[in-house]
């Protein structure tokens, strides 16, 4: 099919009253040099470390308001105990989890096995051939469809809005935090950003470094709808129950 791009752009230009493409003056940061993007990003990372405690507390408050069940723990062992308790309270039989490092550190396997809960890692093996990858992809999807709980780390959290941010990629499936009816997210100290602007500033850094992912999710509380009579219901399509574990 012929792409009407040229004609389309010509129409736009005519409507704007010119016959040549515009080269607009720099505006709203778009012409920022790479070095200023880098500087801003390192400043943000430094502040996230320096203010880690205060940011954790602000996140705790905002996330609670946004409908998360928030628990702050001091050690990985405590985090593991808490997660196990959540899973048992739910009488969950199966968990699917992402390959975030923080979850490896929790060493959940044994506890889950003892509780009779099966835990599946939603990640394609390193050595997989293309054929195997296809198969594994299908089986990850099946695990996410049938799991009672999805467990993830996070890539960032946002104090302003009480959100976690997931950047799906290798080891981080899009579906783990979406398909199961319950999502549990573990936030590490130092991962909390003050606001949305800082998140997008870091995304710009990824962009200029050629690392921008295909996907990003900012998740804030449970899935919601107020489409019938303006009455809030949770758990429409996405998880209806969400837990945030603040570690450190």
């Amino acid at each position, binding site marked *: 099919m012929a792409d009407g791009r040229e004609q*389309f752009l010509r129409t736009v230009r005519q409507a704007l009253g010119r016959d040549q493409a515009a080269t607009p003056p720099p505006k709203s940061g778009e012409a920022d040099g790479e070095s200023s993007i880098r500087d801003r990003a390192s400043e943000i990372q430094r502040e996230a470390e320096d203010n880690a405690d205060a940011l954790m507390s602000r996140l705790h408050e905002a996330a609670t308001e946004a409908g998360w069940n928030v628990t702050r723990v001091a050690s990985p062992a405590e985090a593991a105990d808490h997660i196990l308790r959540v899973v048992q309270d739910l009488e969950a039989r199966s968990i699917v989890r992402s390959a975030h490092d923080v979850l490896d550190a929790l060493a959940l396997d044994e506890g889950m096995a003892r509780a009779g809960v099966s835990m599946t890692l939603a990640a394609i093996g390193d050595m997989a051939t293309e054929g195997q990858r296809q198969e594994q992809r299908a089986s990850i999807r099946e695990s996410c469809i049938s799991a009672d709980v999805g467990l993830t780390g996070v890539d960032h959290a946002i104090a*302003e809005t009480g959100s976690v941010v997931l950047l799906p990629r290798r080891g981080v499936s899009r579906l783990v935090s979406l398909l199961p009816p319950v999502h549990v997210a573990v936030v590490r100290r130092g991962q909390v950003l003050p606001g949305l602007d800082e998140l997008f500033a870091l995304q710009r850094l990824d962009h200029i470094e050629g690392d921008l992912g295909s996907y990003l999710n*900012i998740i804030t509380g449970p899935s919601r*709808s107020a489409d019938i009579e303006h009455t809030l219901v949770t758990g429409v399509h996405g998880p209806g129950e969400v837990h945030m574990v603040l570690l450190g």
Partner: protein
Amino acid sequence: MRPDTKNFKRGAAKALGNERIQANLLGLYNGFDRARLAAADGTPDWELMREQARAIKAHTIDNLDYYLELAASNVEKAGGTVFFAKDADAAAGYVTDLALARGVKLVIKGKSMVSEEMSLNERLTDAGIEPVETDLGEYIIQLAGETPYHIIAPAIHKSREEVTDLFEAKLNSPRYEEITELAAEARRQLRDKFIRADMGITGANFIVAETGTVALVTNEGNGRMCTSMPRIHVAITGMEKIIPSMDDLGIFLRLLIRSATGQRISSYVTTVTGPRHADDEDGPDEFHLVIVDNGRSRLLADPELRESLYCIRCGACLNACPVYRKVGGHAYGWVYPGPIGAIVTPVMTNLADAKDLPFASSLCGACREACPVKINIPRMLLHLRKEVTEGRKYPTERNRSVLEALAMRLWRLSLSSPAALSIANSVARVLQKPLLRKGRIRWLPPPLSGWTPSRTFPAFVRPFRQRWRG
């Protein structure tokens, strides 16, 4: 969606006479409008953000050709495909052909007002493809065979009993009493569709030109499903949805979400940059962005109306509007109702048919007050009223008859100097003779005939100056 804009008065009367709809519409005020005010109050620098957002939009729209090209080239760099559609038909054709070419049987859709412009569901169905709306409100509307009532809350006019009746009739479901049960039924019904679908279609709240990223704001999670589960994702968007940089996204997300529902942020904000990367665990193999004009360039071309393209479709002006809150969404007869709809609908469809819309306002200014990008809606409504009374016709100037153009030119010329006016007046006094009754003109010949079906036109008399001179 075929415009049905001629019957505003009838549609309005129907809604006004329906107690149930009136009761349901109260929620717009009690729910959305008050929540917006509270959210604005609780946001530091709200007013500053509105100013900034307006300035960013003004800059982007004034340089839209540049940003469109930048966005398209960045989507392509990320591995996506971009299609520029001059109108609804071209856009629907592209999506339908793509679906057919890829052997798509089932399409899941997120909320997209632009797809309503395209009557996309009809087109897909005609091609033997099953489209399923997955936003709860849109799902209800699709089952009911209706069109959205509100750009944010499509089924806001329906009570829970009506939804219960609908689910019983269409899904054979039990008679649920609770809204939670109705939502759970929709979740069950749609889960299977998400799993089986080959293509997901969504709108786009923003397109970030700098990175070629599409941003989606959702609450239910269906938008995430549509962008994650099927092997093809198509995002459809109006060409005005562009913002220059990732740096602008924070401001616009805050303004959009807080103005739309009063939430600090929606449950989900999702950004999509191209299809999945080779080593991603999942996500679509193909990503297509369809950028649609469909009459927007006419808004762009008119300096008086250009700022209507700053709209971020938050719905706040609908919720704030005393007229919308009474006459509801269907009276406006097309995709975009309420104050902003009264501006864009006549220009995007046909001013002659939609001529009542610019008058469906008390010009109280509540819409402008509510608008997060400070669009001066009342000024544009006045402008369109003038266009209606002058008999101007959209879609295009070219559609205007030669005769009409000539008449308008003469009219303007006649006003340009006292001498010209006096000559024109003398000519008109002679020409009007056969049409006169009781000193009023009962019927004007085309192109001025729009004046006279419901009112008379004052006769041309000897001007005061001539009479005074004797």
